[in-house]
């Protein structure tokens, strides 16, 4: 059996068939609220089990609990606020209890029962979620650009926003079936937003030593300049899996999600999402979901101590590196040699090689993966 969903039940709020037709018809009469593509991603994740047990955007009591306690009011661990921001102008004439239609790219994708409209304190939000109020932090900067009010309430998805990655997209209800078909009782989830170097591969394979299956789950979403483009990451992983993983032990599908860079809190959140996908274990490496120097390298591991009831087992790893003396990939737990023997893996190093038109060495990245990356004219986000 794969893991139980977070909060006990897998929440699906996708309308289909006649119900969908009826709701779409009704939605056309409703007040329309234009939302960003980022928010539409959250709507889809709520409706499609990823954010179970949430049924909608947080109500004020839930929001406050998440900020203060990293839990929902019923004590279920929940570390990131999933909220929908609006301005006063956008909700003129909308009363608590009304329904609104959520529109993205000119299309209605969902209806929302507006249970609450509430104000919030941006600085408090930043301080509690990101542990800083500095606008140097991309997550804080994003929060500071949000509108003044929040809408809380349940959503029902009527249509999907197109992502361009439908081919690689599986929802938790689907991965759970997939894992079961594979006969996996234990599955480790791997979160990534990078093309895989040898360090990633060793994290995954070391984790795989202890469990039946590996679920590689790259995140597709907002990117920073200089990041690998989503297509590159996917193709690179396909090459890696094809050449270096037994077919029976690894699967990959993507997750539509925008990184918040909330470090420790986000590491817990990443684990929760993977628990909903059916994972029993989750890899937490160095500076998971961190950015700049805002979090200590292993803070994202330490926070798991506060969640003995999480329902998914974190697997903590120290950083892997190549050691010339050992003649292989190791980490500081079992390699005694000094720095001069070590070749560190880093995305930055890989990027520099590729930008200069040089192949990263085989100690750092598999040749098949390098081939794929080099085959793209512009592998990086402009």
């Amino acid at each position, binding site marked *: 059996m794969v893991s139980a969903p977070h909060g006990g039940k897998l929440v699906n709020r996708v309308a289909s068939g006649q119900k969908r037709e009826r709701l779409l018809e009704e939605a056309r009469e409703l007040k329309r609220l234009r939302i960003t593509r980022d928010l539409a991603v959250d709507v889809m994740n709520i409706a499609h089990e990823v954010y179970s047990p949430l049924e909608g955007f947080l109500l004020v009591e839930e929001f406050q609990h998440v900020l203060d306690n990293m839990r929902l009011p019923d004590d279920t661990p929940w570390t990131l606020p999933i909220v929908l921001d609006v301005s*006063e102008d956008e909700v003129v*004439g909308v009363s*608590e209890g009304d329904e609104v239609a959520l529109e993205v790219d000119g299309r209605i994708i969902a209806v929302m029962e507006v249970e609450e*409209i*509430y*104000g919030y304190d941006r600085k408090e939000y930043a301080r509690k979620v990101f542990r800083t109020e500095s606008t140097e932090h991309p997550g804080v900067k994003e929060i500071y650009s949000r509108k*003044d009010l929040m809408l809380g309430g349940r959503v029902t998805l009527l249509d999907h926003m197109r992502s361009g990655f439908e081919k690689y997209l599986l929802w938790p209800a689907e991965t759970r079936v997939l894992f079961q078909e594979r006969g996996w009782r234990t599955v480790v989830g791997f979160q990534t937003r990078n093309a895989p170097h040898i360090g990633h591969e060793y994290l995954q394979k070391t984790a795989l030593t202890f469990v039946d299956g590996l679920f590689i789950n790259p995140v597709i979403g907002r990117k920073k300049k200089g990041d690998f483009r989503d297509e590159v990451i996917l193709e690179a992983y396909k090459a890696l899996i094809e050449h270096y993983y037994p077919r029976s032990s690894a699967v990959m599908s993507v997750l539509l999600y925008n990184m918040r860079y909330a470090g420790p809190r986000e590491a817990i959140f990443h684990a929760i999402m993977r628990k909903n996908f059916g994972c029993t274990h989750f890899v937490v490496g160095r500076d998971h979901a961190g950015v700049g120097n805002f979090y200590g390298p292993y803070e994202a591991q330490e926070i798991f101590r506060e969640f003995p009831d999480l329902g998914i087992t974190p697997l903590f790893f120290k950083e892997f590196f190549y050691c010339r003396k050992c003649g292989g990939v190791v980490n500081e737990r079992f390699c005694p040699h000094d720095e001069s023997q070590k070749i560190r893996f880093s995305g930055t190093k890989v990027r520099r090689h590729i930008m200069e038109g040089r192949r990263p060495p085989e100690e750092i990245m598999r040749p098949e993966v390098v081939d794929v990356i080099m085959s793209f004219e512009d592998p990086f986000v402009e």
Partner: protein
Amino acid sequence: MKGFVVWLTGLPGSGKTTIARRLAYEVRRKGRNVELLDGDEVRRWLSPKEGFSREDRELHLKRVAYVCKLLARNGVAVIASFVSPYRSVRDLARKAIGDFVEVYVRCSLETCVRRDPKGLYKKALKGEIANMTGLQDPYEEPLDPEVVVDTEKESLDECVDKILRKLEELGYLDD
């Protein structure tokens, strides 16, 4: 804990609602029971048939003041957000309620007309609605409100802080 009423008054479009919701969040966080009474929503229930003549507005606001009084005397922190253009009616509410904190949400008419979140000014200027406060109907500025916030000059944080400080000063946020 002592109940009280924060009464936000100001032109349509001055930003009362945003301030009211944020204030509700902050006061609730201090462990208080908060009830938010906001313009149109309350009108729908208390005065569905009344319009916007002076008599109707007065009647409506008297009902609102009465509800505020009932809530406040039971320890609720009430945040009332209404254009409430007439000085006499606001004074009446003050007398009836007692624990009354008047907040003038100031904003120039030009800016309110430009913001026009409900499209009301536009309609009024086209002659589609009469009795628009600020245009056909007068807005009587408070003479001696407990707090004045200026949404053109002050940020939302500053406006809310100012009101909270006054509530503290008046002892309404004491345990």
